[in-house]
């Protein structure tokens, strides 16, 4: 059953078209990531789903209801962490969660939520004494008070250091394990790749890619890179015949680009049989989600520079 069902959704602010016809179905369970640069329309999309904004055009049901028509019913069943959540500095996490719990017909006890988000030790500290990561975990906790079916996290890790980010990732993964449907926006490609069961890429108000990270990568038009190091004189012609394009040397390595790495590897096998060379090392890099992203979303840059990657696909990238 589709938890979120969107067809031809448009949103126009004054002169700007923020969403230009979105069609989207989200099934129950798993983590759906909405990836896109700032200004792509991610927040607009989730806020329309949350009922905070009214679409200019299009049809939308969330958990089977129209957010504009029955907001009350929907609010009881979704939980959201907004991009910026102001937390009352003088209350404690425990009081904050109890306060938000009071707004719902049914709610989880604060102690249970604090446990879920790992803030039990800070239960009675003033919110203003919490670190950035702790505040974000509290914000996620606030989204959990009504034990919602659908969780919407809008850039939950933006501005956090790697450790804090890891903490948030663990919570989100844990929630998936509890059977929740989680919709999260991010502009961190690695985050989407690591966490999401499904990634939706948005560019300028339109969906440009939709699928599992693996699907997206395999569907991508990007080239794989193959590095070959040999002893002896290598004639690369069979490789080129197999579709490899030489792209120079890196130290002792020959570097090739190819759309069809499997063919190139077979060709390399033939070379090793026929030519007087022996293979000393072979490395290969498949296109990543980042490549897909850059390819589909293009050079549109984030305002924040992407942080250093912590999840390299190749374990040993040849040194420069």
């Amino acid at each position: 059953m589709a938890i979120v069902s969107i067809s031809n959704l448009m949103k126009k602010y004054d002169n700007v078209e923020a969403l230009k016809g979105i069609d989207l179905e989200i099934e129950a369970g798993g983590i759906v990531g909405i990836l896109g640069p700032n200004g792509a329309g991610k927040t607009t999309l989730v806020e329309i789903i949350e009922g905070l904004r009214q679409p200019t055009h299009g049809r939308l049901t969330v958990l089977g209801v129209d957010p504009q028509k029955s907001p009350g019913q929907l609010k009881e069943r979704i939980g959201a962490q907004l991009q910026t959540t102001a937390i009352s500095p003088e209350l404690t996490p425990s009081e904050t969660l109890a306060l938000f719990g009071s707004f719902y017909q049914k709610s989880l006890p604060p102690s249970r939520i604090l446990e879920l988000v790992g803030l039990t030790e800070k239960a009675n500290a003033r919110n203003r004494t919490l670190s950035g990561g702790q505040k974000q975990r509290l914000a996620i906790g606030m989204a959990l008070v009504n034990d919602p079916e659908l969780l919407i996290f809008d850039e939950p890790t933006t501005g956090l250091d790697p450790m804090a980010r890891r903490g948030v990732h663990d919570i989100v993964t844990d929630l998936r394990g509890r059977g929740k449907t989680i919709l999260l926006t991010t502009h961190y490609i690695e985050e989407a790749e690591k966490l999401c069961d499904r990634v939706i890429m948005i560019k300028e108000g339109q969906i440009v890619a939709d699928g599992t990270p693996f699907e997206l990568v395999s569907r991508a038009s990007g080239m794989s890179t193959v590095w070959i190091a040999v002893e002896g004189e290598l004639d690369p012609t069979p490789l080129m015949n197999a579709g490899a394009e030489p792209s120079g040397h890196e130290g002792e390595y020959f570097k090739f680009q190819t759309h069809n790495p499997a063919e190139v590897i077979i060709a390399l096998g033939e070379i090793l049989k026929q030519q007087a060379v022996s293979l000393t090392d072979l490395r290969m890099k498949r296109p990543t989600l980042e490549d897909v992203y850059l390819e589909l979303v293009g050079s549109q840059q984030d305002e924040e520079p992407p942080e250093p990657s912590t999840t390299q696909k190749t374990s040993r990238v040849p040194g420069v």
Partner: protein
Amino acid sequence: MMLKGLTALSWAYLLEAMRSKTALFWNLVFPMFFLFGFAIIFGGSDPRRVSYIVPGLLTITMISASFFGVSMTMVMQRETGVYRRLRITPVSAATVVLAHAATAMANLLLSIILQLVAAKVFFNIIIAGSWLDLSLAVLLSGFAFIPLGLMIGSVARDTKTAPAITNVLFFPMMFLSGAAVPFFMLPGWLQTIARFLPATYVVEILQGVMVRGESLSTLGLPVAILLLSGVLAFLVNALLFRWESTEPIRKDRLAVAVGTLTAVYAIAFLLIPQLKIAAPPDLRRAEKADRGQALLLTHCSYIDETGRLVADAQLLVRDGRIERIFRAGASVDTTGVTVHDLDGGFVIPGLIDSHVHIGGSAGGSVSMKEFSKDRVIHDLQAYLGVGVTAFVSLTDDLDDLIALREAVQRGDMRAPRPFFSGPSITAPGGHPAARFETVPGLAERLTRQVTTAAEAEQAVRELAEKRVDVIKLVLEEGNEAFRKLPRLSEEALRAAIRAAHAMGLKTTVHVQTDAHARLAIDVGADGLEHAPADLSDDTIALMARRGVTLTPTLAVFEGLKNVSAGTPISDSLVHRWVTPDILQSLQSPASWINMARQSDAFVQTMQKLFDRAVDRTAAAYRQGVRIIAGSDAGNVATFHGIGLIRELELYARAVGMSPREVFLAATRHSADRLGRSDLGRITEGAVADLVVLKANPLQDVRAYRQVAWVYFNGRRLHPEQLLSTNPGSWQPQMGL
């Protein structure tokens, strides 16, 4: 559901405010600076002046708590996204707004309570009205102000515009409403503008309750306007509330909101022709609140015009008169009638002291305070406090008394009903003119010194034109040992009495000796003042036959005896109603009393004069002479108000008069001498000047000391508030 969220959100807001040092400072500490600043600088730490200032201060505190606190919180929460986060929960806008309102109300009440406690503890302010009325007035004020703060919070664009809008509203409210500047001092056109401000009506009701002692029921129109304004302002908030800063401010809705409130105050402007705060504070008095109200005094007994107790009665009082007297069981229609349960009290007519001098302090003539205007005003309150609701002044400044009579009749001054002779008529340089000669011009004001019949007639005619109530003549020759004084001639005395009678005025004659008394009676005097030591039985018999009254003034004889003998004053009533400096002046070495006390002869003379006065009064009483109670208060150690209570005790205990005659001497007989058949008695149609005693004075004369309440002109006075509330506009011209 909504209630749970509302409670939780209000509590959270309150916790935040209580935990934030800045919020605490502005909510609770800052108003204290205002209080202390205003009370010390403008109130001079004087309880009465501070009491007048405090309602305005409370108003300022409430405006700032309602406007600044609420609007800034709302704008900040909207700007920082607190509202967005709330918006994705099921909590409604109404809940959020109500939570702000509830928190603001809690803050406001806390702040007001602190200020009131501080004002009470540090400045001993007097709250004339009831605590219940004050509490309701504060709640109502918050109810009117807080929605305005909510409106600012909804309308303001950001944290910079909110204080700007607040200030634009705050300052006019502060300065035009009477909160910071007395309203009556504003020019008329500013008063007109001010009447479109809610704060003006808040000051009106707070001053009404706290200064004028009114109940909210008598402030119906301002109360209704504030209620209406609060309800409508709250409703229009629904039009204005914004979850997000990016939502546009609906100018059309804002116009509706402002228009609605302007309409409310336009109605107020039309419906309430006169604001009471527009009158200077002197013209306002606590008991004005009861004007026009009908009262039913229940659960009481009363003493009738014959001096007999009527048990278990109910008295219906309307427009200052006793309208009907019912038996206890009778069913009385009490619609529109306020019922006062008198708790089994004994109701008597207000007492009348038939011989006083309000210009005299009863002190030793040494301190400036004795000659101050405040002293006179204080003593007028003391009369009321002990149950004396009328007096007859025999020798005081005529213009002051005429002004006082008019002020009391208009209801502009809380004082006993003054009856008076004005000056007394005596011989040139005679008593009491000789006593006043140290102050130039004083003797001329307080006496008419005449020699010939024509001069006497002229003096009486002049006084009659000024509508005096009685003519006082003086026969006195001074003292051989001390100082001889010229005495009013028989010719002048006779002419004066004849002229007075021709003009329908009664006369009474100050007499020193039996010979004076005989002369006065011979020429037709209606009454004698002071019981001479040598008053003969023959003269007494003549008095009885001719119906000449005697006002013995035993109190002044006793006072003189006691101070000359150095007897300490241990009367608790004196200590309650007489200021310490008057009592100290009696002990002052600079006082003439101190010198007189050195003379054994003087001390013995005083003792003898008192003993003889008692003895002669007793003789007169036994012979059937009508005794009229008068104390000569204002003379040495004869204290205003208390003097009459002492006089009555002496009648009962020293003279041996029956309780009934003691009662009549201070009520009906006194009124009859003044020709007032509607005064000094409890009958249907009589003036409702009443005293409620806790005990029966027909059983024990000490009951006169046990005053529970005093009703003046049908309005209840609270004795404990008399000295602390503003009595009104009248001030004596004589006096410092």
